[in-house]
Structures are given as C-alpha cells and as structure tokens.
C-alpha cells in the first residue's frame, strides 16, 4: 500500500500530463462560465464594442491619408489585424494574471502554493477567457481583408510564415503581460504596469519606423513592442527586404517568454503569504 502510493507520487509530469490537466480545467471553466450566462453575453458584447470602437478610431486617424511614413493604408490595416490576433493567447490564456495583484495583496495567493504541479501553470490555468475568441475572429477578418486588398498571394509557404510570425508576436505579448503581472510580487500595485502593457499592445500595431532612433532602440530592445507585430510581419509585407531581427524574432520570442516565466516564478518564490 505504502509503496504503490509513493510510486504514484514520483510519476513524471511531462507535457502530456499538463495538456491533459489544462484541457480538463478549461472544460470545467467554460462549463462554469455558462452558469453565468448574462455575464458571458454582456462580456462578449463588451468585447465586440471595444473592437468596433477601436476600429472606428483607426479609421478616423488613418482613413484620410493614403500612406503613413511609407506604409500604405492596407499595410497598416494588416498590422492592425495581425496585432489583434496575436493578443488572443494573452487574452485567453493569461487572463488570471489580472487578478494576481489582488490575490497577493489579500494573502489569498497562498492557496495556489500547495499543489504538486507547476505553480505558474496552476495559477493561469484557473481562468480561460472565452471572449478573447471574439477578438480572434475580428482580427482574422481584418487580416484577411487587408490580405486581399494588398493582393498578397495565397500560398502555403506564406500562410506558414504568417502563422510563425503570429506565434512569435503572441510570445512577446504574453511575455510582457506576464512580466508586468509578476511585478506585483515586488511592488504593491502592479495595476499600472499591467495597464501600460495593455497600452503597449495598442501601439504595437504601428510600424516602428515612425520613431526616432532612440525610441526605435527602446521599443525594440527594452520594451519589445516592435516584435509584437512589426518585425514578424515584415516577412510577409516586405519579403524583399527582411532584417535580421525578423529572422531572430521567433527565438527571441521564446527567450522573452521564458524570461517572463522565470521572473514570475522568482516573484512567487519571494512571496511570503502574509499579504501586504
């Protein structure tokens, strides 16, 4: 009896284990969301309204000008759709990070610390934000529309490139949000940092060439806004002139995400569970 039990304890927990657990938790989460039906309905409307309002703002700003800074209207629209899609994983998977500061502040975070699975995973898995999928649909529509207007070819290789570029951009966005949320382990109110990270995403959709050299550097290497749409999508929009950074971006994306994860875990390790 004793030995059987401790064997179970030492069974390796690989990606398959985590995927299985995640799918189960998400299924449960969606099930429970359905029990608050009006909330789900209103949140979805809110999400759609937000996207429409954002789109209107975009039209007002750029509709009148055929090109900005050497980027034609539909290219900017492409970046717009691109950034909406690449925010989706952050929105859907990491939504619980928005509550982190409250859990830490109230001392409730401690309840996540007693499970024999990865702490970050266990924490973020608790919430899956379904309405992020609405944003995904909106972004995809915009991207496809811009794609057609730009007369980009529909080839397997280009679609593949786009997918890689989107994954890359998503990794950067997740990294930024994750790191911003983790800051609450050190400073009491991380809300402003999270808010900034959300705003940064809004500005990711503009070509980084509009900045002067100093800020180009800052937004490329310090706050990686330029990687959230601009560099990855150059491979699609400007295939003749792809900078090295675009080729490097998938690897940098993985690195950034891993870094943010490490930061989060380090913060959680520092957590004393007493509340502030």
């Amino acid at each position, binding site marked *: 009896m004793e030995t059987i039990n401790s064997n179970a304890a030492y069974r390796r927990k690989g990606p398959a284990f985590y995927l299985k657990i995640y799918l189960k938790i998400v299924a449960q989460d969606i099930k429970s969301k359905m029990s608050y039906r009006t909330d789900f309905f209103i949140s979805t409307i809110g999400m759609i309204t937000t996207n429409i309002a954002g789109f209107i703002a975009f039209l007002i700003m750029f509709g009148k000008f055929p090109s900005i800074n050497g980027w034609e209207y539909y290219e900017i629209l492409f970046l717009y759709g691109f950034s909406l899609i690449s925010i989706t994983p952050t929105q859907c998977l990491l939504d619980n990070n928005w509550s982190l500061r409250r859990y830490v502040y109230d001392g409730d975070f401690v309840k996540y610390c007693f499970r024999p699975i990865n702490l970050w995973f266990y924490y973020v898995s608790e919430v899956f934000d379904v309405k992020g999928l609405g944003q995904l649909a909106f972004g995809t529509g915009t991207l496809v529309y811009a794609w057609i207007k730009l007369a980009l070819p529909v080839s397997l290789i280009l679609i593949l490139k786009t997918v890689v570029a989107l994954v890359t951009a998503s990794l950067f966005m997740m990294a930024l949000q994750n790191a911003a949320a983790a800051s609450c382990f050190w400073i009491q109110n991380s809300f402003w940092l999270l808010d900034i990270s959300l705003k940064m995403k809004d500005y990711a959709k503009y070509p980084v060439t509009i900045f002067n050299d100093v800020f180009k550097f800052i937004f490329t290497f310090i706050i990686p806004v330029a990687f959230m749409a601009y560099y990855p999508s150059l491979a699609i929009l400007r295939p003749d002139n792809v900078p090295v950074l675009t080729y490097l971006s998938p690897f940098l994306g993985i690195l950034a995400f891993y870094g943010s994860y490490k930061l989060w875990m380090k913060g959680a390790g520092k957590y004393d*569970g007493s509340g502030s």
Partner: protein
Amino acid sequence: MESIIKLSNVSKEFKILNRHEGLAGSIRDLFSRDYKIVRAVDNISLDVAQGEIVGFLGPNGAGKSTTIKMMTGVLEPSNGELIINNRIPYKDRTKNSQEIGVVFGQRSQLWWALPLVESFKLLKDIYQISDKDYNDMLELYGSMIDLEPLLHKPVRQMSLGQRTLSDILAAFLHNPKVVFLDEPTIGLDVAMKSKIREMILGLNQKKNTTVILTTHDMGDVDALCHRIVIIDKGRMLYDNDIEHLKKFFGAYRTLKIRLREDTEEAAVKLTKELSDLDIAISNDDTWISILVNEEKTRVIKVLERIQETHSVRDMQLEEISTEDVIKKIYEGGTGFGK
C-alpha cells in the same frame, strides 16, 4: 516511531518597512529605506511522528501560520533545518505538495463555480490518484458523512460549514502523509464543529495521517489533540501532552458559581470586591468562573468572601480547563517555559 516532521532550531525573519504617520510621513515613505527586521519564528525545534495530531496554539501573530508556511514549502526558513517526509520542503515544493494536504483558513482551494465532485476529479488528475484509491477514499468519506448531496453542489452555493468540510475532504483526498489545518472550525456552529472534529479524528485513525492543526478553539484541542505546542512571539513555550500541562497547573481549581442576581453585573462587582485576592474572574451567560491557585488562596476562603455579600444559588468545583491553562500561559508570569 519514525518522525515525519523534524524542525531543528528554525527561525524566520521578515524585513518590514517602517511607515511614518500623517501626510508628511507618507511622502517620506515614498523614498524611505528604513526597514526593521522582525523575527516571526524564533529558534523552534519540533519532532512529530507519523499519525500524531498536534495542536498549534498561540495568540494571533505568534508565528503559527509562518511555521506552517515553512513546513508546506511556501516560505524558506532564515535559519535552521526543516525536514518533512525526508525532504526539504522549500527546495522541493512540488514533490512535498504531493504528500501533504493543506486547508488554510477560510480560503477555499476548490474551484468556486463547480460542483464539489468536479473539483475532486481535477484533484484526482493533479495528484495522479489511481481509480481504485480514489473510489476507496470516496467510499470511506461516504461511510463517515452524508456525501452525496455535498458532491453535486457548486462550492459557491455551500454554507461556510459545508465549504470547510469540503476543503478538508479535498485535503485528505490524495491520502497525504501530513495534513495541515489552519483554524478549521473558525466561525462554525456547534453541530458543524463537532462534525468536522469527528471527521478529522476518523481520517487520522483510518489513514494514520499526521495532522497539524492551529486553532483558538479549546474544543478542538480537547477533542483532537494528544499533544500541543504553544508558540508566543515566535518562541516555543510548550511542547507536550495536554494532561502534563494540566498537572503543572494542578494547584489551580475553577470555582463556578451561580448567584441570585444578574450574572454580568455580579461578575463586575465581584471583580472589584475580591481585588485583593490573586484570582481571575470570568463569566458566561449563567456561570461565573473563578480561577483559584490553591497554593496561594484557599477556595473555601473565596467562597466565604462571596457569601458575605452575595447569595449563592449553585456551585461547582472543577479542575482547571484547557482554556484557562492556555490563558494563563499567554499571560505569562507563571514561570512557565523557562
């Protein structure tokens, strides 16, 4: 017996910012580096064997929770050595978690919107419990309480008592070697309290689970703990069984009286009238309890003094209650723990 928990000279220090008062103070705090070191746990050693139930007692802020957080691997001790299940919990938090269960205050660790059984199923996967062990455990639960209605109720719709019960069941589900319970009966009614105590005792006996329990409720201590550990200001004051403790206070008696007047008012009056005697007076709705140290003051003398001015309707003489023992120790000045 093999020890499952072993603490050797464990201490924990926190760095706390000195905050200043008032508007100017707040502005100064913006730039302040003025920290002070607080010792929440000070040089504690402890050895717990498999299957024991140990009660952790102490006033609020005594360091009980901090000690538990160190044992569960959430906090790293500043000094000393801490071994749970032959592991250093802080370094090996994930593996340590596999073999412990925790219920922390009223913070439910269950999935809020889901029926309890769904939470159980998720925990079954997370702790990789085999189908057989899982079913056996549910069967055991079923034999102890009326499980069925609880299983299909969403946690958010449960009463506090049901939720606490569910959390305790969830903590025992993967048959851990040690379960930590932080004030499990706080805020519950009498019936629920005794139900939860029975449950804990039953699981401890059937599964030989070690239970570490913090509480302010002496009912918990009397019902569950063979052994108690008293902590105050981070230091360990006492570690032995409750009988031992009572023997130490063997000369103490509790004199309980009922008077032919309002209990509340009489207690106030008596406190004033008998202020020259070395006794402690408290009261509930019907009884006035007077704690007397026989070595210093004779009970008979106290009674005489009372009868001079009051008319006694009923009286009882009891050994010192656990509650009073603990109170005495917190108050200090008993020569205890030296």
